[in-house]
């Protein structure tokens, strides 16, 4: 009897093993297949969500209740209560400040995940958020392809920051080509003739330049390299423009705060950060020589001047990069950050709420933006954007949402 028990036990796992092995290999292939079949989108998390929500337009049963209420009464905001967005980290402070004030006024909250511009684009394409936010604008083709509209929401500037003994903020002046040469490793000493020529009367130390860049993909890097490519042919052909590039020299640090910390921690260093970040941390910035040949300091007026002289309608989706704009008072590294939404959103109610929020932000958010060292969009751009909303963004019934 005992013996049969043993044989049973011995026999059983063998059979089960074979059975489970087959099951397991099946499951493993099942797990591998969906991510592989969709080879264009390699982000597995967004792939899975896009798979389900793409079908959502056909089924739509879960959304129908919300859509119905909005169709009958667009003003009934209570049913939504929350706007969701994701994307660029650069405008996160001002978006969250606006969201806070907006919630106090209307009771409607905004959930903004600052996961980076690339993440924002992925999420709006997967339709998991109502709006996406990006620092690097999408091209007209990309917008048309995915049925998105794009507009600039707020602006800021990028400033070179340095840590050089005896040099105070604004004492050092650089021009575009010298800045490009420094970040390309062509100018390696602080007392290089190219720097000295721009800074007569400033005593420059005979030390090597420590370059600090962003290691993470970033809209800041995109705008910074865009400017360097504008002013330096060698940069354009040798390195190029992107959210992360092949830096020939220097160390990479994560985020604005990482760059700031590395510049502060290493003597004789230079890096680039968002203006708001440099100002709030009292970093030593450089002045720049702009396209008009004038020396300018980074401040709100200089950024606004860049926006004023730009031709916003020259590119589809207002995708103008504000680098190296004309004008005497223009700061050469100004950047706008953009919002992405669908022309015909799946969820009319929450899209309407999002547009109302942006309208409110354009109208009442300027003070708060300036308080955080962001620059509000000029009135002409706001007008044009709002007109675009009513002509482009339509609900299921074909009527404009706002």
């Amino acid at each position, binding site marked *: 009897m005992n013996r049969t028990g043993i044989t049973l036990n011995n026999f*059983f796992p063998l059979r089960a093993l074979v059975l489970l092995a087959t099951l397991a290999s099946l499951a*493993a292939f099942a797990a591998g297949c969906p991510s592989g079949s969709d080879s264009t989108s390699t982000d597995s998390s967004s792939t899975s969500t896009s798979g389900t929500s793409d079908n959502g337009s056909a089924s739509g049963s879960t959304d129908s209740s919300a859509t119905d209420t909005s169709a009958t009464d667009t003003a009934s905001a209570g049913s939504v209560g929350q706007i969701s967005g994701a994307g660029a980290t650069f405008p996160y402070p001002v978006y969250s400040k606006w969201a806070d004030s907006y919630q106090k006024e209307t009771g409607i909250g905004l959930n903004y995940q600052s*996961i980076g511009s690339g993440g924002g684009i992925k999420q709006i394409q997967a339709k998991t958020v109502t709006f996406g936010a990006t620092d690097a604008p999408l091209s007209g083709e990309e917008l048309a392809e995915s049925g998105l509209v794009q507009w600039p929401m707020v602006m800021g500037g990028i400033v070179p920051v340095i840590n050089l003994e005896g040099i105070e903020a604004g004492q050092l002046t650089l021009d575009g080509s010298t800045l490009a040469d420094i970040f390309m490793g062509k100018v390696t000493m602080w007392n290089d003739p190219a720097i000295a020529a721009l800074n007569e009367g400033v005593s420059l130390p005979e030390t090597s330049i420590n370059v600090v860049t962003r290691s993470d993909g970033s809209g800041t890097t995109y705008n910074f390299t865009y400017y360097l490519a504008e002013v330096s042919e060698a940069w354009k052909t040798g390195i190029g423009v992107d959210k992360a590039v092949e830096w020939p020299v220097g160390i990479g640090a994560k985020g604005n705060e990482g760059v700031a910390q590395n510049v502060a921690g290493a003597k004789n260093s230079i890096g680039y950060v968002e203006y708001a970040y440099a100002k709030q941390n009292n970093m030593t910035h450089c002045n720049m020589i702009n396209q008009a040949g004038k020396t300018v300091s980074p401040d709100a007026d200089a950024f606004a001047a860049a926006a004023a002289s730009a031709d916003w309608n020259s590119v589809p989706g207002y995708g103008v990069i504000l680098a190296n704009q004309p004008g005497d008072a223009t700061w050469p590294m100004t950047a706008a950050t953009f919002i992405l939404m669908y022309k015909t959103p799946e969820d009319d109610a929450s899209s309407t709420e999002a547009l109302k929020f942006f309208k409110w932000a354009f109208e009442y958010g300027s003070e708060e933006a300036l308080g955080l060292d962001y620059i509000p969009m000029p009135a002409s751009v706001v007008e044009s954007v709002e007109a675009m909303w009513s002509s482009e963004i339509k609900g299921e019934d074909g009527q404009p949402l706002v």
Partner: protein
Amino acid sequence: MSGTMLNVGLDAAQLTEQRSKVLRGFARGDRAFSLTTLIACWTVVIILTGVMVALFRGALPAFQAFGWEFFISQRWSPPKEIFGGLPAIYGTLISSLIAMAIAMPIGLGIAIFLTETCPMALRKPIGIAVELLAGVPSIIYGIWGLFIFAPFLAEHVNPSLVKFFAPIPLLNALFANGSYGTNVLTASLILSIMIIPFISSVSRDVFETVPAVLKEAAYGLGCTTWEVVRKVVIPHTRVGVIGGGMLALGRALGETMAVTFVIGNAHRINPSFLDPGTTISATIANEFTEADPGLYSSTLFALGFILFVITFIVLAAARLMLMRIERRLGN
């Protein structure tokens, strides 16, 4: 007589019946139990296979685009879509190796001190303190490394290192420059601090398994503490010590956050340990959020796959080494 016989017969049959019922019950319970454990085991295998397959599928476009070039190229240019994995692979290996070289003697030293020479009253508290170190989240080492340790090294240690090694050929190439606080050596030092607790707590546990009789006999023969450790404790626990070392190496290879903060994140191979570098996990953590779908993302998948394979090879090599040692000891 015959009645009783029959009775007995019946009883015996009933008893047999009863007994086999109970035994069947046991067998069923055992079967359920072994099935449960089997499922638990297979869950891991299924997940592991799934991860591996998904990584490989994600990496395939990059491997197809670059081929073997990917393993030897140093270029890393997202705008031009030219990617080479060598700097990240090199950085991963070199930072882990330096970290192991620093952490192994220190970790063993701690373990030997705790088991052999430490006063009894202090053993518990010091042991607990070391184990607490193992529980510190890596991001904390990263922040501490970036804000305090790296500037300190750049200011006080790197210049003297460069000066000290300058006249020595070969070594002066390994310790050159040093103007950046965040570099390969800083990352290795942080890594070594992180893995010391692993080595020391595993080693301490295995050292404690050495029978007291063996040690006492050795001491009785007049051995010094060093001789006891060298000739009795270490040979007796070699397998466990190597196991602890491999566990630590595994952690060092895959460590992400702390390394990202202090390695300098430069896609270049510099001979000097005082120059910035990068590792596979740091590259993925840095660039995944903003990587465009397509070749760029696929490259990061490819790096992930390579890290997977490297870790696998390290563990397999450790197993092989242990098996060889055991076989030799058996002979």
